């Protein structure tokens, strides 16, 4: 049946708000070279190149074809994924399919975004149907603001808890040289920030960053020749959903229709089929795609990591801190670094570093054997991946 898939190299650029010194292709090639160096491979050893980002952010159509000089894809197989916020994890998953299907032995996965070149919020606003809800769509933040209000109403979570999440993320990002926003903030600092979309303030939402991340995947046979420290893709699940831009039905408890999120479905299925009954024990780190400070708490519940209404309590008790019992986003997460096309890919790369013990200053204190990674995007869609130090 399916080939096992190993991650044999990861590489990312540092993330920042602007990179006027490089064009988008050059940004990509920095990450590609870093990943190849990590895997101790040359571009000739790669047979497939898959890349992903969102077209309007930089205004390019078919940019995978346009940037082949820099991705190294010239003469190789490959294609581009294009699924919104999930594109980073989805591109990684597509690389997994390339290897698992037996069609590729080695696959280079590239996620990237150069948000300093285009009007990000305007681009995201065009996800909405042009005839129905586009006039009311304000980037990705509006949906975030709506579900954050819902979470507070439902569980008693307060603004302070979101501020705790952000303050903790800033501590982690401070230790991560590749993170974008590395300034440390106290809970009070976060609460004082300017409101962007009520109830969210500037520090509670993700920034727009410039960066790229590349990952080298290999089949089992190849991986064993390439590296002594492969990280294995144990399982992955994609749960997208109906178009809900104009109604957000699934995010609210409506009369007769209880709230059903993609996180709930993805978490339940993935944990169940991998026989994980005590996720807080069996998983040692969670690199979650957390585009705003509330969702880290809300989605810990939805993914089934903790019980309903317990997400914000975990944060309050420090469980999710880097040195806590269940570290979430020790990299600083999307809250501190968000170049959308690589936000998901970076989550995978960071989880790999944690499993290998190569995360340096932001290495968690627990020994990481199994890591959970999530991607988020589109109409509240979810990708969820389980990575492991061992293949079985």
């Amino acid at each position: 049946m399916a080939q096992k898939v190993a991650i044999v190299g990861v590489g990312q650029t540092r993330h920042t708000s602007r990179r006027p010194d490089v064009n988008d292709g050059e940004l990509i090639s920095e990450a590609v070279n870093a990943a190849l160096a990590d895997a101790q491979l040359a571009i000739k050893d790669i047979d497939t190149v898959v890349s992903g980002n969102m077209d309007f952010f930089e205004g390019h159509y078919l940019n995978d074809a346009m940037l082949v000089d820099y991705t190294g894809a010239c003469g190789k197989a490959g294609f581009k994924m294009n699924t919104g916020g999930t594109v980073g994890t989805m591109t990684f998953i597509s690389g997994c399919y390339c290897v698992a299907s037996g069609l590729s032995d080695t696959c280079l996965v590239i996620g990237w975004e150069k948000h300093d070149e285009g009007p990000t919020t305007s681009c995201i606003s065009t996800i909405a149907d042009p005839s129905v809800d586009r006039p009311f769509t304000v980037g990705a933040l509006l949906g975030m603001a709506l579900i954050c209000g819902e979470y507070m109403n439902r569980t008693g979570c307060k603004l302070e808890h979101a501020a705790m999440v952000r303050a903790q993320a800033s501590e982690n990002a401070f230790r991560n040289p590749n993170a974008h926003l590395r300034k440390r903030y106290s809970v009070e600092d976060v609460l004082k920030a300017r409101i962007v979309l009520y109830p969210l303030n500037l520090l509670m939402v993700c920034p727009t960053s410039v960066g790229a991340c590349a990952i080298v995947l290999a089949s089992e046979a190849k991986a064993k020749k390439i590296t002594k420290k492969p990280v294995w893709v144990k399982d992955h699940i994609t749960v997208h959903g109906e178009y809900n831009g104009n109604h957000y039905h699934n995010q609210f408890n409506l009369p007769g229709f209880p709230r059903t999120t993609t996180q709930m479905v993805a978490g339940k299925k993935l944990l169940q089929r991998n026989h994980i009954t005590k996720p807080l024990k069996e998983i040692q780190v969670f690199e979650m795609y957390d585009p705003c400070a509330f969702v880290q708490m809300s989605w810990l519940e939805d993914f089934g990591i903790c019980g309903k209404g317990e997400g914000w309590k975990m944060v309050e008790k420090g469980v999710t801190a880097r040195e806590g019992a269940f570290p979430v986003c020790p990299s600083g997460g999307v809250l501190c670094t968000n170049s959308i096309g690589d936000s998901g890919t970076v989550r995978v790369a960071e989880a790999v570093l944690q499993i290998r013990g190569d995360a340096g200053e932001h290495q968690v204190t627990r020994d990481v054997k199994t890591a959970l990674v999530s991607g988020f995007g589109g109409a509240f869609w979810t990708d969820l991946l389980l990575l492991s130090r061992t293949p079985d």
Partner: protein
Amino acid sequence: MEPKADVELITQEMLLKIPYRWSTGEYIGEFLQELRDSGRIYANKCPNCGRFRCPPWPVCGVCHTRMEERGKWVEVGPKGTVIGFSVVEQSFLVPTTGDMLEVPFSVGIILLDGAPVTLQHRLQETNPDKIKAGLRVEAVFKPKEQRQENIFDILYFRTI
């Protein structure tokens, strides 16, 4: 990696401007036509799972059943209850016009009277302290002669 001080770094500005004529199709199109002609808001129901959609939709997004056809659409609103909202304080470029958004701009998810269905639309009230889940609101239409078969034939929802 850092740009050297002695190198002039060039940037090139380009304005992308693409025209579109988006088809609204049978369902959304008739919904917009009703807004213009009768000032009525319609929703339709999934005969299988009972979910409603506003605007009416051809297929249920949850169970992939054909939703009810034109003759069976139900009128919803114009009154409703806010269940979620946000007030946009930071302006951004509106991609469909190229202009900056006038802020504050208030958006609500409105549970419309008549069916368990929500519609996302603009709220007249822009003070976040005066909006909360549970607030009763009502659609305000443009004068009939100014309506253009688009979603802004409803100007906004005002607090009752």
